[in-house]
């Protein structure tokens, strides 16, 4: 720093807000770092504000009264500020004061953490200012936009899709043609196969016959072998021989038993015959039946005789009873002569006479009821007239209404009575009486009519009374209405009776004709009665009933008498017949020793006995015959059976009687039969198959002898060929059609043309990408080369400060664009970050660097103190370290630094940081002590604080290789880039490396940044050394580039997930696999293709590979061979001005270092 530094030595606060009554003085301030601590209200802020008031008194606080003592450019200054008025003394003399930055820069010297982090806009304005000053009149961004520069190739445009599609189409048609070519090439073979298949078809038929024949032949052979295992004799055994032999023996025994029994029966029969004592031949045929018939006749005759006796007895009784009924009116002797017909007529007459008398009695009863009544001789005309007069009288006034009503009731009553009488008469006597009901109706009408008239005349009654009196009728007792009415009622009754009498009279007249007819009949009966009395001689007073009884009795007697006579004659005849029959029977029975019979019962007993004797004789005779026949048959059958038995054994070649052997043979017979049948069937089948086989046109005689297995094998082969016949034929046809079709097509030509067209278009796109990306690369280099050239000093200074305070870890960049912003480039990771992407500590460093750079660059000639007011408050250790280190670096550059804090641990951090710093002066002021306050900030023991700056191991004479081991370096990872390369790979001298490490410079990125930003002072200014370092770095950089060729980005879990080709099921396994292959996408894909992950689909593998290719994980270029890398590294050394003869050795040395990892 060339500017003069303003360093306060002492500040005396006489009065200030919060310190109106007591001031304080801080003296012996350090020109380097001043750590001012104290509890709240101890004056830290007051002191900081006082410094600002001393520097810019025109804007000082009104209340303050302060003194300041400082050195500036070797001169001692004193300033007093009170009421915004400043008084200066330089070296003890009044002065106008030094030239200091304007008051608007005042805040830039106050660095409070919260302000730094919050004033983004201000930081941005810094960036914009820098950018404006550095563009040099050219708008590179606009140019890049105008030219469409890009850093990445085009994506999947329509051109790409068209190319892919056309390629696919091309491959498809190409494949089709290739397939067709192959198929066509196979046509001769197919045709041969077709011929073979056709021949096979014919052979199959022949071989089928041959196989069948051979099987039949084998079957016959097998059957014959099985049959031959049995005894030959079985051929003539039916299987029942043993049973037959046993049966024969049983039959012989049976016959012998029968013979013995028959002999016993023979003897018994002979004995019985002798005992019966009948002739040898028994009774004559039909003798017993003859006897029985005669006996039956006798029985019938005896029975008939008995029946006639009984009938005769009943007839005699009937005759006797009839005689009793006749009594003595007719002697019994005459009865036999009486005419039976005449007595029948008499009985009929009696019945007719009796009916006539009954009719007469009925007529008499009716006539008694209809006989006219002589008392009703009244004049009906008079009664009618009287009725009318009375009715008229009653109808005339002065009859009252009540009378009138009574008249009406009277009329009604009268009419009802008349009607009832008519009805009764009609029912009881004659229906004609019902006409009386009409009269009742007339009475009723009249009654009503009269009542109506009576009310109409003035006095008509008298006339009517008069008329009545003229009649020969009884007068009413009085001519009052009631009496007249009563009289009228009686007249009504008389009229009714009169009418009834007239009706009975009419009926009586009618019945008189019927009576006459009945009287005639009675007369005739009387007459006929008389004649009969005389005819039969009965008494005259004999009634018809008596005549009837007598006639009946005579008839019965005559009938019974006839019966008696007839029965007696018949009875005599029967007796004669009985006697005759008895005689005959006795003569026949006497021959067999029987006594004469008396009755039919005796005959029955003799016959029954004779029948029994005959039956016994017959039975014994039969038994004798049967026994003799049985004996004879038994002898004959026994002989035949024995002969048959012997013959059977002899025929089978067996010893007679060897039934056991015979049984054994019979047991074998079914098997024999079965096997024999099998042989027969097999023979038949074989003959049939031979005929079929020999009839085949392709018959070969050896086929008849070929074993089945051989034939079947041949058949299988031929069948396989034959089965293919249709398929081959169709294939040939299809191929021929396809070929014919293809020859007239132009699909391949079109596809080829389209492929070329689309690939041309894609090439054009690639050329566009080349242009855009090369242009972009050019633009990047242009930016890098020129961006900083035109930057104002402030930017360079800010970059330098940042490089310094971060030990080269970060480089300050400007992000062009709208708005222009600061960026920090991580030199180790070789990656730029926007401020909001940085950790707050790094961000703070960036902002601090920019702020300080501005302060410095805008200071005209004086370097003013920087005030850190509790900047570490609430910050983490890392951030605090950064700030402290930054402040120390500033102090080292000659700027006075004040740090105000109320935190003991912050003070401790300062102590820890400054402990190892030798070239920076510092003091620590406790304001509590300065002011004698009770409270103190407790500063922790330094031993409790970790020293963050690593202390590298001292090489102590170790060679380069050995020092690496002491450092314990990790293997070099080209993926990390050259920026992250440890300096061991670049710095050959262990001691120089140690110096870098002590400064906290470990990586090439740091060192490169420091070198480029002018931080050489931190390292070395030996250009030879720096040149050597740069050469090694360039070679290492070339190695890294070579290494990356063909490798692509490392695949990790995130990449696998981002590909969307790996499901959760496989992600763990795939991640592990990627780890095993060190993220090498090519190796990973190879492993996948080799089935390292079972179940992972081929389509997913394709997707994954496409993703790797598209996103730079899979480089299509093959990795370089080690020799190629060596050559390139050596070439890079040459390009870096290493002598060609030394470049190889340098390259080898570098590669050995890398390989040693």
């Amino acid at each position: 720093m060339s500017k003069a530094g303003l360093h306060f030595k002492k500040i005396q606060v006489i009065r200030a807000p919060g310190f109106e009554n007591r001031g304080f003085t801080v003296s012996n301030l350090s020109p380097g770092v001043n750590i001012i601590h104290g509890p709240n209200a101890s004056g830290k802020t007051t002191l900081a504000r006082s410094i600002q008031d001393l520097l810019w008194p025109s804007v000082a606080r009104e209340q303050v009264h302060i003194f300041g003592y400082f050195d500036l450019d070797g001169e001692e200054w004193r300033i007093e500020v009170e009421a915004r008025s400043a008084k200066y003394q330089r070296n003890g003399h009044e002065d106008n004061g030094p030239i200091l930055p304007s008051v608007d820069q005042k805040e830039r010297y106050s660095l409070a953490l919260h302000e730094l982090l919050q004033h983004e806009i201000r930081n941005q304005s810094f960036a914009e200012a820098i950018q404006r000053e550095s563009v040099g009149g050219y708008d590179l961004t606009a140019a890049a936009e105008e030219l469409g520069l890009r850093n990445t190739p085009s994506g999947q445009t329509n051109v790409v899709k068209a190319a892919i599609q056309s390629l696919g189409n091309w491959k498809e048609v190409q494949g089709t043609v290739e397939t067709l070519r192959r198929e066509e090439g196979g046509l001769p073979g197919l045709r041969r196969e077709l011929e073979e298949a056709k021949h096979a078809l014919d052979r199959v038929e022949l071989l089928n016959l041959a196989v069948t024949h051979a099987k039949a032949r084998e079957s016959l052979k097998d059957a014959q072998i099985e049959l031959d295992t049995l005894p030959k004799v079985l051929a003539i055994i039916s299987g029942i021989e043993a049973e037959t032999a046993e049966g024969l023996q049983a039959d012989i025994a049976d016959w012998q038993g029968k013979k013995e029994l028959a002999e016993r029966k023979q003897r018994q029969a002979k004995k019985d015959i002798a005992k019966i004592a009948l002739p040898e031949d028994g009774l004559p045929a039909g003798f017993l039946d003859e006897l029985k018939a005669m006996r039956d006749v006798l029985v019938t005759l005896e029975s008939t005789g008995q029946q006639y006796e009984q009938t005769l007895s009943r007839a005699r009784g009937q005759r006797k009873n009839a005689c009793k009924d006749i009594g003595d009116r007719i002697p019994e002797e005459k009865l036999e002569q009486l005419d039976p017909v005449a007595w029948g007529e008499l009985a009929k007459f009696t019945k007719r006479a009796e009916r006539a008398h009954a009719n007469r009695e009925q007529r008499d009863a009716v006539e008694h009821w209809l006989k006219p009544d002589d008392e009703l001789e009244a004049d009906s005309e008079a009664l009618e007239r009287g009725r009318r007069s009375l009715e008229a009288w009653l109808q005339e006034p002065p009859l009252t209404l009540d009378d009138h009503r009574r008249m009406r009731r009277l009329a009604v009553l009268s009419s009802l009575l008349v009607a009832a009488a008519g009805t009764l008469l009609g029912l009881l006597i004659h229906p004609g009486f019902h006409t009386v009901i009409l009269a009742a109706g007339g009475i009723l009408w009249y009654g009503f009519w009269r009542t109506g008239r009576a009310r109409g005349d003035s006095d008509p009654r008298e006339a009517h009374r008069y008329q009545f009196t003229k009649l020969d009728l009884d007068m009413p007792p009085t001519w009052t209405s009631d009496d007249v009415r009563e009289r009228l009622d009686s007249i009504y009754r008389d009229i009714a009776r009169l009418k009834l009498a007239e009706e009975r009279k009419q009926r009586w007249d009618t019945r008189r004709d019927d009576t006459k007819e009945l009287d005639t009949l009675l007369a005739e009966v009387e007459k006929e009665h008389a004649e009969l009395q005389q005819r039969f001689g009965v008494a005259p007073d004999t009634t018809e009933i008596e005549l009837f009884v007598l006639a009946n009795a005579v008839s019965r007697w005559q009938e019974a008498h006839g019966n008696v006579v007839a029965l007696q004659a018949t009875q005599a005849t029967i007796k004669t017949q009985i006697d005759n029959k008895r005689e005959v029977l006795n003569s026949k029975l006497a021959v067999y020793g029987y006594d004469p019979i008396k009755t039919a019962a005796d005959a029955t007993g003799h016959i029954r006995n004779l029948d029994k004797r005959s039956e016994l004789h017959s039975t014994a005779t039969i038994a004798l015959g049967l026994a003799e026949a049985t004996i004879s048959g038994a002898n004959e059958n026994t002989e035949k059976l024995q002969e048959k038995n012997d013959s059977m054994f002899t025929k089978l070649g067996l010893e007679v009687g060897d039934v056991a052997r015979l049984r054994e043979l019979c047991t074998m017979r079914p098997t024999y039969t079965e096997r024999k049948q099998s042989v027969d069937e097999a023979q038949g089948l074989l003959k049939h198959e031979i005929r079929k086989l020999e009839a085949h046109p392709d018959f070969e005689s050896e086929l008849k002898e070929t074993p089945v297995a051989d034939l079947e094998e041949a058949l299988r082969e031929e069948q396989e060929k034959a089965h293919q016949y249709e398929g081959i034929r169709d294939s040939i046809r299809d191929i021929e059609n396809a070929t014919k079709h293809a020859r007239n097509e132009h699909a391949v030509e079109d596809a080829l043309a389209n492929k070329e067209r689309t690939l041309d278009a894609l090439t054009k796109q690639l050329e566009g990408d080349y242009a855009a990306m090369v242009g972009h690369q050019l633009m990047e280099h242009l930016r890098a080369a020129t961006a900083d050239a035109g930057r104002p000093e402030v930017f360079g200074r800010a970059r330098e400060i940042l490089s310094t305070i971060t030990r080269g870890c970060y480089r300050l960049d400007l992000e062009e664009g709208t708005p222009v912003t600061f960026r920090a480039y991580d030199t180790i990771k070789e990656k730029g970050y926007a401020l909001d992407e940085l950790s707050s500590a790094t961000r703070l460093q960036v902002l601090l660097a920019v702020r300080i750079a501005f302060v410095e660059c805008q200071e005209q000639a004086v370097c003013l103190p920087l005030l850190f007011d509790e900047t570490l408050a609430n910050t983490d250790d890392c951030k605090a370290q950064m700030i402290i280190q930054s402040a120390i670096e500033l102090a080292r550059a000659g700027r006075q630094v004040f740090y105000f804090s109320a935190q003991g641990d912050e003070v401790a951090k300062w102590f820890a940081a400054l402990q190892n710093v030798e070239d920076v002066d510092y003091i620590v002021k406790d304001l509590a002590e300065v002011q004698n306050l009770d409270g103190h900030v407790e500063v922790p023991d330094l031993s409790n604080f970790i020293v963050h700056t690593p202390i590298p191991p001292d090489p102590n004479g170790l060679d380069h290789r050995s020092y690496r081991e002491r450092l314990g370096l990790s293997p070099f990872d080209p993926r990390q880039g050259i920026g992250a390369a440890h300096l061991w790979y670049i710095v050959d001298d262990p001691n120089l490396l140690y110096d870098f490490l002590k400064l906290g410079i470990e990586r090439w990125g740091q060192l490169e940044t420091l070198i480029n930003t002018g931080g050489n002072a931190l390292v070395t200014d030996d250009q030879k050394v720096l040149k050597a370092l740069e050469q090694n770095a360039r070679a290492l950089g070339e190695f890294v580039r070579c290494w990356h060729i063909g490798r692509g980005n490392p695949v990790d879990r995130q990449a696998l997930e981002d590909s969307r080709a790996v499901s959760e099921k496989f992600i763990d396994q795939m991640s592990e696999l990627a780890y095993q292959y060190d993220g090498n996408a090519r190796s990973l894909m190879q492993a996948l293709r080799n089935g390292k992950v079972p179940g992972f689909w081929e389509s997913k593998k394709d997707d994954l590979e496409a993703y790797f290719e598209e996103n730079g994980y899979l480089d299509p270029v093959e990795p370089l061979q080690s020799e190629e890398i060596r050559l390139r590294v050596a070439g890079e050394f040459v390009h870096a001005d290493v002598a060609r003869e030394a470049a190889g050795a340098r390259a080898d040395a570098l590669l050995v270092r890398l390989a040693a990892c």
Partner: protein
Amino acid sequence: MTARGLSILCTGDIHLGRHPTRIPEDADGPQFSPKAVWQATIEHAIEQEVDAVVVTGDVVDRENRYYEAYGAFEAGSRLLRDAGIPLIVVAGNHDYDTLPKMVADLRLDNVHVLGKGATWERYTLERDGKAFIHFDGWSFATEHVHGSPLENYDLPQDSNVPIIGVVHADLDMPGSDYAPVSRAELLRTPAAVWLLGHVHKPGIHHSADPLILCPGSPQALNPTEQGTHGPWLLSIDGVSAQPRQLPLATVRYDHLTVDASNVSDPMDIPPLISSQLRERISTDVDTGFLKLILARVTLTGRSQVHARLQQQEEQDRIKEDLTLKIGTTPVCIETLRVDTKPDIDLQGLASSDTPAAWIAKLLFALDNGKLTDEYTWIAQDCVSKMQEAYGAKTYRSLRQEGWVDGPDRKQAIGELQRQARILLDTLLKQKERPS
């Protein structure tokens, strides 16, 4: 046989089944297929009543795998048979396997494949029962043949009968994989005429004794096959042979360099190209059978509109604005290559300390091949970037097909130069704009 003597129609490298490239899709059609030109060739042979038709190999394009060639070849062969014209063919590297097979399948007695199995074979055309001319032919038996077929050329000489040699061979390309032969070898043979295949560009390589003729492909297949294409009619009178090209090709590729130094407005470019194209084609080209002319135009010179011409939009507009027909044949720009340079004094510009000066210095160094370390780094970065683009999945199709090679340092430096010029021009234009 005509009264004029012997006439032979010869062609080669028909590549049936391939299609000319770079034809705009909306203008493309079967008329540009080599099949169409083959058909026209056959018709012409019949019409001219030639004595024979000779094809110098690569009848079938290997990419098409033969089928689509088969139909066209068969149709032409039958027409020739019907006209009594023999067809003499040799197999080339594309159809070493398919042509003999195809001919064998056709079983046409007028079609003769000479030299099957990489041997020399003779077909003699007779007239009045006497040998009139010999055709000595040799065919590829494999795709690659590293030695000269002429080393085994041992067919008997016949001083009374002229010989026409037919072979598919790479002329004067020693070390070629495709039967390299030298002119000297051919000159040492007794043949009166050598008809060579493989080289698509038609041309007479030796005018007489022997006549060495590369008939070339009858149809131009890509922009590298510029000029007139079509079969050749060879008239032989005794031992003298007179070749004449029949421009039956339907498409023509051409290249035109246009100086744009004096152009101040890109709008003036299309008329400039149009006039120069018209002038050139009208005077040099027989457009009788042409149905399309595809011109590759390169703009050169120091141009004030260099930067604008570099813009794709501007180039597309120029192509669109060029509506040219010569006769009835439309002319299209196949590729417009802008190879102009900005009209800038690089040395003068480089003296300052601005971005433009930095680019000027870079361009100066690139143009003069003096790359400093810094520029070497830049070039290397450009190579990396181009390799990145080349290796992107987007261009997998190109890589798989081997359509383009991976970028190298030279290409990267070329692209860097181009981009530097564009960028410089763009930046300088910023200065010209009112602020």
